């Protein structure tokens, strides 16, 4: 988790306006406020988590990204972050579209369903994989649209979304993902971090 925050933080310029979509308890927001001079806002669907954020003085609004992103004007943030949440939406495509409309740049992190452990689980056990990043059973998972790093990479290409940077996170280790090492990184990365622009 910490590593992911570090990578995200490094992608963000000082003195920028940031929106964390699905900000949860606000720990990424706190991390950014501590490590960068940024103006950061959050959107979160869980009342409990919103209350926690507000109790910590964070500017967080209760809402559902699939409906409530509409209220933010075009290009009203320098960065919009979506950390490990894309898979939980009814329509990830529309959410990405909205993020690209609101943010000059968009950071999306993807729990990678293409990781070798996931593939082995399905291959040998014949059961839906349960991992550290994907700890749910098939019948209670909030993750409706799982994808791999490669899937998301292809999606961006098909939709003509510019990918500025793709970073692989595996344990503590970060590395660059390029079109030439994509197949391999898709096998060994737990998390993919994408920096996008319309």
């Amino acid at each position, binding site marked *: 988790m910490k590593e992911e925050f570090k990578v995200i933080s490094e992608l963000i310029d000082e003195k920028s306006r940031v929106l964390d979509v699905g900000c949860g308890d606000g720990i990424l927001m706190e991390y950014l406020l501590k490590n960068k001079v940024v103006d950061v806002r959050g959107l979160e669907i869980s009342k409990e988590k919103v*209350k926690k954020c*507000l*109790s*910590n*003085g964070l500017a*967080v*609004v209760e809402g559902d990204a699939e409906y409530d992103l509409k*209220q*933010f*004007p075009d290009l009203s943030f320098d960065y919009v972050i979506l950390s490990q949440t894309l898979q939980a939406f009814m329509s990830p495509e529309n959410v990405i579209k909205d993020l690209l409309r609101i943010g000059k740049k968009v950071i999306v992190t993807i729990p990678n369903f293409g990781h070798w452990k996931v593939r082995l689980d399905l291959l040998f056990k014949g059961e839906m994989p349960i991992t550290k990043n994907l700890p749910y059973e098939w019948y209670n998972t909030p993750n409706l649209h799982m994808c791999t790093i490669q899937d998301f990479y292809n999606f961006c290409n098909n939709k003509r979304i510019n990918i500025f940077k793709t970073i692989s996170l595996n344990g503590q280790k970060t590395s660059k993902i390029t079109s030439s090492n994509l197949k391999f990184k898709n096998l060994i990365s737990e998390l993919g971090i994408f920096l996008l622009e319309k």
Partner: protein
Amino acid sequence: MSNFGKMKSLLIKEPLKLDCGKEISNFPLAYETYGNLNEKKDNAILIFHALTGDQFASDINPVTNKEGWWNYAVGPGKAFDTGKFFVICANVIGGCMGSYGPGTIDPLTNKPIATNFPVITINDMVNAQYKLLDHFKIEKLFAVAGGSMGGMQVLQFVSNFPNKAKVALPIACTASHSAQNIAFNELGRQAIMSDINWKDGLYDGKTFNPDKGLAVARMAAHITYLSKKGLQEKFGRNLQERSDLKFGFDADFQIESYLRYQGSVFVDRFDANSYLYITRAMDYFDLTKQHGGNLSKAFKDSKTKFFIISFTSDWLYPTSENKDIVIALNAIGADVGFVEIKTDKGHDSFLLDVPDFLSTIKNYLNTTYLNINERRI
């Protein structure tokens, strides 16, 4: 009402131009304070009361001898911690707890001003209370807060004085009184004005007082403050001190008896003409219209941090109307937090012991006060 003389009051000498075009001057604004203003004068919170509230937000109201209307929220260690903050609360103009209102005695006639009192607005109320900042020599308030009509005053305050409050807490309110809100207020006003003892507002308060009309107004309003589920759970079809229906029009049901009681105690503490004037002020409130149909413009010059709260079971000032304010603020990139608190207690939730609500406010205010001082945001 023998304790009226002990109330704190600010005499506002300079003229105040009202929205209706008239001007008032040399009028009293009754207020109360809790806690202490610190040396830097940066810990003051101005709290605005709702329709039937007054300046006695906490402790014991010396006039009614009952607990202050926001006693759950205001006091040492409470949501608005008077151990840390200096809380000021004033009776709105048009009110009946010492501020200039229709019950004020006109020195020329020695009778209440009654319906000669000018029709006032939320804007007028806020402009009058702004004078308290000068009185206490407070350059900038730490916060402005209030629920219901108090929330409307919060919005109007920030709109009028964009850099005079660091934090704004509008709770369970709206930026524009809805047709339904106006309808219920009109019902109350008609109940009062249909009472034969109202006498075109010239009742003397002793022999003649529109008690029945005012009580009915309160009963109708009280229903709007509660949720259907809350009423059902509290009263259901329970009978009042009887084992069977009496086939008459006495209060057979507990809910009837409860409403009658609420009506009867209200007339002892509230003035019928004040009720007319204050409900009218609420009905006229439309901050969106004040800004040419664009609510965002109301806050465009403000650096204030907003924290907006609504309640799931509040159908009088529903979440959707509170969210309209959030949307307007987000549209201009304002600093805004928003949460809808889950409760069955209806609109009244903001006055009640709803722990989630109170603890979130307390933590938000304490943390934000520290953050502003340390990070200098």
